[in-house]
C-alpha cells in the first residue's frame, strides 16, 4: 500500500543564467532524477552583442578593438585571427620583430587564460585558495601588458601589419623574471591540486569525451587534446613565428576532466618555454609594416586561424575593396565545446556538472559573440 503511494519524478532545474559556476551568463536546463543528470540543454544568447554585424559597420582598423572583447580572457588571440585574415587579404608581410612580439603576447595571454581556468575550476570544486593563487600569478601578466601597451585585459596589442608599439626597455627583464617564476608556482598548484586525492576523485573518469565524439563535434584546443588527439593550429598551420620556436603539443589520453586539466597545466609550461625562446631571440627592426592610414584590402576573402587558449579561433573576412568588411564571421571554439557538453553530462551527478562545465573552460563572450 505504502509503495503505491510513493512516487518519484524528474525535476527540471534551471542552472543559470545567474549562477556562480556557469562562468558568465549560461543557462543549463538540467533534467534531474534526484542528483543524477538525465539530460542537459545549454541555452545561450544572453551575452549576444552582434560583434559580427558591428564588423560590417566599422573600418578595418576600427574593428580591431572590438575583437578584444569576444573572448575577453585572451584578447591577443582574437586580434591574431582578425589581423591574420586582413593581412592575408592585403598581402602584407609583417616584420620579424613584430612576429616575435606577437607570439609573446599570444603566449602570455594563453597563460593568463589557463590561470583563470585553473582558478575557476578549483573554485568550482571548492578549493578557493587555489583560485586566489592563480589570480595572483595572472596579475603579473597583466602588469607586463600594462607596461607594454597600457591596457591590461583588452590590450589590442596587435595592429594590421604589426603590433601597437615596441616594448619598453624594462619589459624583457620582467618577462624573463616571470618565466623563471611561473614554473615554481605551477609546482605549488600541483602540490595543492594535482596530487590531491579529493581532486582526483572528483575529476578522474568524470565527463568522458571520446576522441571520435570530440572530433565529430569539431572540438579543438585542450578539450580535444585532453581526449588524446594531437591537433594544434600552431603546429598544423604555423603562423607568426611559431615555426621558429621549439615546443611540444601537450596531449593526454584520459578523455576526462583530469586529462583536460593536465593538458592545460602542461601547456602553461610549454608557453613559458616559448616566451623564453622569443625573449632570447627577439630580432631587431621595425614593429609595424607600412600599411597606410586608410586600409582598403582588394576584393576577396580570407580566413585567419589561431590556436586560442580554448581551441581554434577563426576569423573569416570578406572584402569588396571598400574600407570596411562586407562580412565578418567568427569561429569561436567554446561554442562547439558547449554543443558537446550534454554528451558529457548525461548520467553524472549534480556535483559533476560544475566540474565538467569548468573543464571545457568556456567563455560566454565568444559563445554568444
Amino acid at each position, binding site marked *: 500500500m505504502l509503495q503505491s503511494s510513493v512516487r518519484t519524478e524528474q525535476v527540471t532545474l534551471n542552472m543559470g543564467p545567474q549562477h556562480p559556476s556557469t562562468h558568465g551568463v549560461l543557462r543549463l536546463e538540467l533534467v534531474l532524477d534526484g542528483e543524477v543528470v538525465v539530460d542537459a540543454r545549454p541555452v545561450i544568447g544572453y551575452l549576444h552583442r552582434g560583434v559580427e554585424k558591428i564588423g560590417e559597420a566599422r573600418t578595418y582598423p576600427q574593428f580591431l578593438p572590438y575583437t578584444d572583447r569576444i573572448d575577453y580572457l585572451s584578447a591577443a588571440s582574437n586580434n591574431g585571427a582578425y589581423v591574420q585574415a586582413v593581412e592575408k587579404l592585403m598581402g602584407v608581410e609583417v616584420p620579424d620583430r613584430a612576429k616575435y612580439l606577437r607570439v609573446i603576447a599570444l603566449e602570455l595571454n594563453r597563460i593568463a587564460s589557463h590561470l583563470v581556468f585553473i582558478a575557476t575550476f578549483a573554485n568550482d*570544486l571548492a578549493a578557493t585558495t587555489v583560485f*586566489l593563487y592563480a589570480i595572483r600569478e595572472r596579475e603579473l601578466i597583466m602588469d607586463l601588458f600594462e607596461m607594454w601597451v597600457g591596457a591590461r585585459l583588452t590590450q589590442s596589442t596587435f595592429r594590421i601589419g604589426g603590433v601597437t608599439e615596441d616594448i619598453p626597455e624594462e619589459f624583457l627583464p620582467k618577462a624573463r623574471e616571470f618565466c623563471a617564476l611561473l614554473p615554481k608556482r605551477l609546482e605549488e598548484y600541483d602540490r595543492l591540486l594535482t596530487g590531491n586525492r579529493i581532486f582526483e576523485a572528483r575529476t578522474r573518469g568524470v565527463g568522458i569525451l571520446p576522441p571520435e565524439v570530440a572530433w565529430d563535434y569539431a572540438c579543438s584546443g585542450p578539450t580535444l587534446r585532453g581526449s588524446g588527439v594531437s591537433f594544434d593550429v600552431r603546429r598544423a598551420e604555423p603562423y607568426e613565428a611559431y615555426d621558429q620556436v621549439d615546443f611540444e603539443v601537450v596531449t593526454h589520453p584520459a578523455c576526462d576532466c583530469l586529462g583536460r586539466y593536465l593538458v592545460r597545466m602542461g601547456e602553461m609550461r610549454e608557453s613559458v618555454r616559448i616566451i623564453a625562446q622569443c625573449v632570447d631571440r627577439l630580432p631587431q627592426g621595425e614593429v609595424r609594416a607600412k600599411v597606410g592610414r586608410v586600409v582598403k584590402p582588394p576584393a576577396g576573402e580570407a580566413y585567419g586561424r589561431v590556436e586560442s587558449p580554448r581551441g581554434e579561433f577563426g576569423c573569416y573576412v570578406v572584402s569588396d575593396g571598400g574600407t570596411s568588411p562586407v562580412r565578418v564571421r567568427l569561429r569561436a571554439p567554446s561554442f562547439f565545446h558547449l554543443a558537446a557538453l550534454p554528451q558529457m553530462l548525461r548520467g553524472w*551527478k549534480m556535483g559533476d556538472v560544475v566540474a565538467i562545465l569548468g573543464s571545457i573552460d568556456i567563455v560566454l563572450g565568444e559563445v554568444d559573440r
Partner: protein
Amino acid sequence: MNGGASERVFAFLTGYGVPEWIASAVWMLLMAIAVIVFVLLTVLILVWLERKISADMQSRVGPNRTGGRFGLLQTMADALKLLMKEDLVPRGADRAVFILAPFLVFVPALLVFLVVPFSDKWMVKDLNLGVLFVIAVSAFPVIGLIMAGWGSNNKYAVLGAMRAVAQLMSYEIPLVLAMVCVVVAAGSLKVGDIVAAQVDGGWFVTRFPLQLAFLVYMIAAMAEVNRVPFDLPEAESELVAGYFVEYSGMRFALFFLAEFAHLFFVSAFATTLFLGAWAGPGLPPVVWFLAKTYAVIIVIMWIRWTVPRLRIDQIMSFAWKLLVPASLLAVALTGAAVVYGKL
C-alpha cells in the same frame, strides 16, 4: 559556575524572602543569558578569525578597515547589516515551516553548551547523561534543515536539504560511536567524570586505542558542521547556497550563527572528550580549555581552506564503508582494552 556562585545567588535571593522556585528560575535565566552572550561573542570572534586565517592562507589582507587595522568590528558591522535587511518570505513558501526552521536549527546549537566544561568550576549543568544529551540535541537540527529546504519551495534548497539530511544522518553514527569509545573508557556518561578520568590518568588522545576514535570524531565532526571537504549541503558552486538559499536578514543570520556555534561546540567537545578539557599546567583552566578549543578550530579551518569538495556519493560511501567500520573497530578495541585493564 554551578558551584559556589549558584549557591550564593540562591542564598542572596532566598535571604530576601524570594520563594525558592523563583530563585532557581532567576538563576536559570541568568545562565541562559550567559550562554547566549557567550555564543554570540564566540561567533563574532570565529567569523573574524576565519576571515583572517583564510586571508593569510590565500595571500590576501582580509578585513582591515572597520574597527582598526585588523578589522575587528567587521563582523559586528555585518551582523548589524543583516539585522536591518528586509525580512523576506518567498511567495509559494510554506510560511509556518519556513519561519520555524531557523529556530529549530539555532536552539539546539545553543542547548549543547549546557554541558561544556569550560573550567573545573564553570559548567552550567553537569548532567548525569551529559554525552547522551549532546547526542540527542545535536541530532535535532536535521529536522530544521529539511524544513528549511522544503519550506522554501526552491529546487536548490530541496537538493541542499536532501544532501544535508543524508550526510548528517550518516556521519551521526561514527560520531556517536566515537563518543561511545570515550564513554566506555571513562565508564560514565557524565561529562564531569570523563574530564576527571583524563585529569587523573592522562588525556584520552594519548591512550591507545582512543586515537582511532579521535580521528573518527574529527572527520565526522567536520561533516557535521558542513565544512569543506564535506560542505555539500551548501555547496556554493553547485547549489548556490543550499537549504538556506531563500533566507535573508536575521533568519539567514540564525543559520549562520548556528553553524559557527556548532563549529565551536564540536571543537570544544573534542577538547572535552579527548584533549583533557581544562587540564593543563600553569595557566588558569579556562585559558587552557579555550586554547585547546581554538587550536582544534584552527585545524578545521586550515583543512577547509586547503582541500576541494567531495561528491555526494563519495561522501556517503566514505561514511558507510570506511568511517562506520573504523568507529566500530574503535569501540571494539576500546572495550577490549577496558576489559583487560590496559587503558
